[in-house]
């Protein structure tokens, strides 16, 4: 399994990191979608396990969560899904989910099982560094990297503290708000990335609201190590629910398009 540090230092451009809700719209289609994204040039995958109450997510990802849950997705099946992906290609995977799913599964067992399945890092959407003590030790014991968020309203002192607890990458949120496609990129991003790069050596990836190739390029130019694209990609699934072929071709085309501009 390749570590993030290795990957980010090998790449001479920003890594392209698409986000998918595991099992959206159903297990088999989701598997083909993620494989297609890998074939189209994804460098890292950010995968979410659906939750009934995703408070950090906007309507696009909420709907994807509901589709996946209705189709029977749960933590156990997500584990199988990740194993199948890793068999297809040994690509770094960041897991993104809400704390209750980990807590119910059993924190230590969750980290051990998902690490064994090939996950590199875990980002808990509803956990800040303040309550993180209950997961840091078991995550490290399992060999998982930690990922925490930094937002435009995070103070400098706190950024340093977050960086010190992060072993994977800092997930930099580009806007004040929840996930969702946005027409224009927040002009705060460049400054935020620049500031982080001065504060820490931990890789910095940017997400939330990145929906066009030119947004990705701008973020990469600002010095980000990776660009995370979520709602835009999920919306391509939502727009083509009547045809799996159309989903696959739309995802493939979009990822290739962004990738060609990142190089």
């Amino acid at each position: 399994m390749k570590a993030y540090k290795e990957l980010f230092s090998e790449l001479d451009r920003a890594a392209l990191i698409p986000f998918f809700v595991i099992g959206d719209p159903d297990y088999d289609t989701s598997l083909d979608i993620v494989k297609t994204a890998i074939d189209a040039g994804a460098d890292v995958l950010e995968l979410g396990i659906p939750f009934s109450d995703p408070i950090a997510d906007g309507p696009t990802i909420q709907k994807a969560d509901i589709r996946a849950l209705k189709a029977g997705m749960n933590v156990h099946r997500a584990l199988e899904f990740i194993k199948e992906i890793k068999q297809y290609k040994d690509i770094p995977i960041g897991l993104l989910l809400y704390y209750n799913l980990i807590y119910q599964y059993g924190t230590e067992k969750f980290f051990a099982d998902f690490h064994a399945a090939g996950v590199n890092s875990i980002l808990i959407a509803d956990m800040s560094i303040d309550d993180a003590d209950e997961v840091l030790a078991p995550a490290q014991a399992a060999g998982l990297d930690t990922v925490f968020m930094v937002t435009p309203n995070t103070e400098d002192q706190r950024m340093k503290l977050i960086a010190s607890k992060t072993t994977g990458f800092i997930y930099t949120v580009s806007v004040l708000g929840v996930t969702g496609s946005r027409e224009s990129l927040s002009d705060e991003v460049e400054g935020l990335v620049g500031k982080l790069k001065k504060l820490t050596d931990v890789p910095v990836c940017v997400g939330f609201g990145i929906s066009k190739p030119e947004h990705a390029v701008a973020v990469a130019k600002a010095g980000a190590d990776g660009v995370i694209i979520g709602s835009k990609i999920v919306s391509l699934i939502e727009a083509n629910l009547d045809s799996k072929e159309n989903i696959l071709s739309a995802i493939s085309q979009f990822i290739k398009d962004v990738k060609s501009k990142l190089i």
Partner: protein
Amino acid sequence: MRQKGRFGQYGGFYVPEVLIPALEELEAAFYDHYQDEKFVKELNWFYKHYAGRPTPLYLAKRFSEQVGFNVYLKREDLVHGGAHKLNNTLGQALLAKYMGKSKIIAETGAGQHGLATAMVGALFGMETKIFMGVIDIERQSVNVHKMKLCGAKVISVEGGTGTLKDAINDALRYWTANVTDTFYIFGSTCGPHPYPTVVKHFQSVIGTEAKQQCAEQIGKLPDMIVACVGGGSNALGIFTGFIDDKNVKLIGVEAGGEGVSTGKHAATIVAGKVGILHGAKSYLLQDENGQVLETESVSAGLDYSAVGPEHCQLKDSGRAQYYEAEDEDVLDAFELLSKKEGILPALESSHALAWVMKQKGKLSSDANVIVNLSGRGDKDVSIVEKYRPLMQ
């Protein structure tokens, strides 16, 4: 944050990073002001002249005759707006004013907290948005109209099942994007720290008054305090006054819906497992994979899958006991208090009354029981009419 916001293992602030600065700001403002002389004086002025406090402690003689012991009602139903909710919204809105926030938002289920927020929004001239599930908007159309009359904008939440849980989700999302100028007035002793502490503090006026009234009217402490528990704010509000008096039994009554064994209920402490929702660790109604379950109850105000973290600690320590009351018994209680006392209790508060009715024959005739009558039942008449149509 200055504090961890823990009640034993419960509570905390499990929120996305973006909300941390807002919670820190709220926590700082609360601890700076809640004991500040000027703030306290101003809040007490509004409690007296706007909300109509203190509320009476009333010995319900004819209801007592039915159950065979003394039942006193703490009349929060007489608070302006018809429920205890205003105690909290006045406190938080005043805090918002001291913090210089010009906009307030709130979630609501039955509409009582939404209405109490809309009222203080009008009172303080603040732009007010109320998040309410689309199903609840249908069920509580009169309250929706009242909120609008008070100048609030009611935002229909369609995600999930369109009830309180989803309204909280959307209010939190909105706050995430508008933290700089918006104050989120949370309605119960739930959610991330510091809300469980803030809401309890502003509701503790119920217990403080009740204790003094007991001394005046009974000449001693009561034997038992009974209150309904959804998120748990009215219960903690009255419990707090008696928490150190170990001989006073504290009883919380949850919504048993159609019965805990049917799965159609909201009895979180009675039937839930520890989990994390809306920023706090608490008992939680959830499936085996950790997905949060929907709740069902005749009273929309108790329809919540989680519960205040302090109640979870009180349960574990044994200081308070928690039971459930089923819909049919709740309707019986609603009818009995109306018939014997001419007081229509809210269906939420009727849960506490229903539990008290079940104690008939179990308590001695000189026992003194206080029921927190957290709200009035006018809002529920159409619901009761559906379940129990009156004969001509």
